[in-house]
């Protein structure tokens, strides 16, 4: 599993979900507790009609996120005649991008759902 390293004593962590090629789409952002099926926050459900609201502050102090898993399920639909897609989950701290977990590909399907996730670690 990919790891996103952050500063224990830094500012809050932010997660952002993105879709490329101007594709519309929808997503669910989940924050899992360390090695547990419990969730550290309520699932965030959103879409790409307004990118201003695709940023989410992960609740609590940064140090609390050590070992947690941040996950995004992103569903997109290329317009008819197009196939390529790109989706990404980005984690930032103190206005610095720590890491981007992304996936790109092409599909003949009407919609495609991609699972993006990584472990947060100090």
């Amino acid at each position: 599993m990919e790891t996103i390293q952050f500063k224990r004593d830094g500012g809050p962590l932010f997660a952002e979900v993105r879709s490329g090629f101007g594709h519309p789409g929808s997503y669910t952002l989940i924050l899992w507790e360390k090695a547990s099926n419990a969730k550290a926050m309520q699932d965030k459900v959103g879409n790409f009609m307004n990118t201003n609201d695709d940023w989410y502050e992960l609740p609590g102090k940064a140090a609390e996120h050590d070992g947690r898993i941040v996950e995004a399920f992103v569903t997109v639909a290329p317009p008819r005649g197009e196939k390529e897609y790109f989706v990404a989950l980005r984690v930032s701290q103190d206005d610095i991008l720590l890491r981007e977990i992304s996936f790109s590909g092409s599909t003949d399907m009407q919609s495609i759902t991609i699972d993006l996730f990584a472990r947060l670690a100090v």
Partner: protein
Amino acid sequence: MNAPRVVLVGILCAASSAAAQNAQDMAVRYAIPASPAFKLVSVNETAILRPASFQQLTTALSNFTDKKQAFQLPREWGIEVAPVFMAKGRHLSASDYQQHPTLYRFRISAAVKRSESNGVNDVALGFRFSPVDKSDPRSNPDYVSGITALLTRVNQICVARVTGPDGSRNPELRPNATVGPVGAVCDNDPAIVTLNKQIKAFKDAWADSSWNKSQVQFAFAAHAHASDSLGRDPEFASAVGWFSAAKSIGTWGQFTGGLNVTAKRDTLDRQNRTTATGGVGFYTGSSKYKAFFESEIARDDTVTVGSAKLGAEFFLTEQFWGHLTVGWQSTGTDDKGRLVTRLTLSTNFPLKVTP
């Protein structure tokens, strides 16, 4: 009045006089071609690249090699790209696109064709701008909101399926969890299969409704003879500018208007001649079946010609369309013009192999 001549399967009856032939040549349609450069230098459809990303472009260019695997441009090739869209590609959000649709719809086309007999290269470069395009799904709020609602339902069902029936399964504890498409666990879910059918129907309905959407477009293309495929030592051959506008009328009609100005160098006397063509049209019906009225007037230094016609376009199969027109066409001489009837069959077989 001349007797009507029926034309079958796209074969046009030869003009009976030089003036009539000139009228036919000058009847340049004001509609902007999809790729302006390809209108000036006719390139085989199989030699045209239309990459949507840099990855597709590099893959396509990697095929341009000779026997020694060195890079070599083919004798005939064309390319059409939306450069800003391609440059931003993966990082282009839906809202970015909606804020600057003209920028992302801007397209460049280029075509090169080398003559086997004298080695002269015909090169053309074209630019196309679409400030208004209501048929563009990305910039249409109805399309975006409608399909987003469907995708939200797909997403919710898929999340529930992947993270377990109780909605709680951490990827650390989920067997075979990998970053990437969720795959069959969602794709084969009956509810998602149904939703994907609805998404397809939504996309198809959108495409069918796009035939009469409002648009404003303009384009420019230039054609030159050059000593090599890169356009060195160019000698002007022709240049064309287009402007067209279309206004939708409900879901059943469309008004169109356009203007085309062409400057072309005469190969004999080396003089540049300019032709201006303007026209209006009205269309009614649906995507697959429509009736129309079109009229055009074209003028150059020596003659003014015009045409007006009624017609119908009808869908036969996915690969075949029929067109029937009955109209009047002036020849630019003193006579009263001629009645022309034309029945053509158009095919739509895919010819291009994408990289």
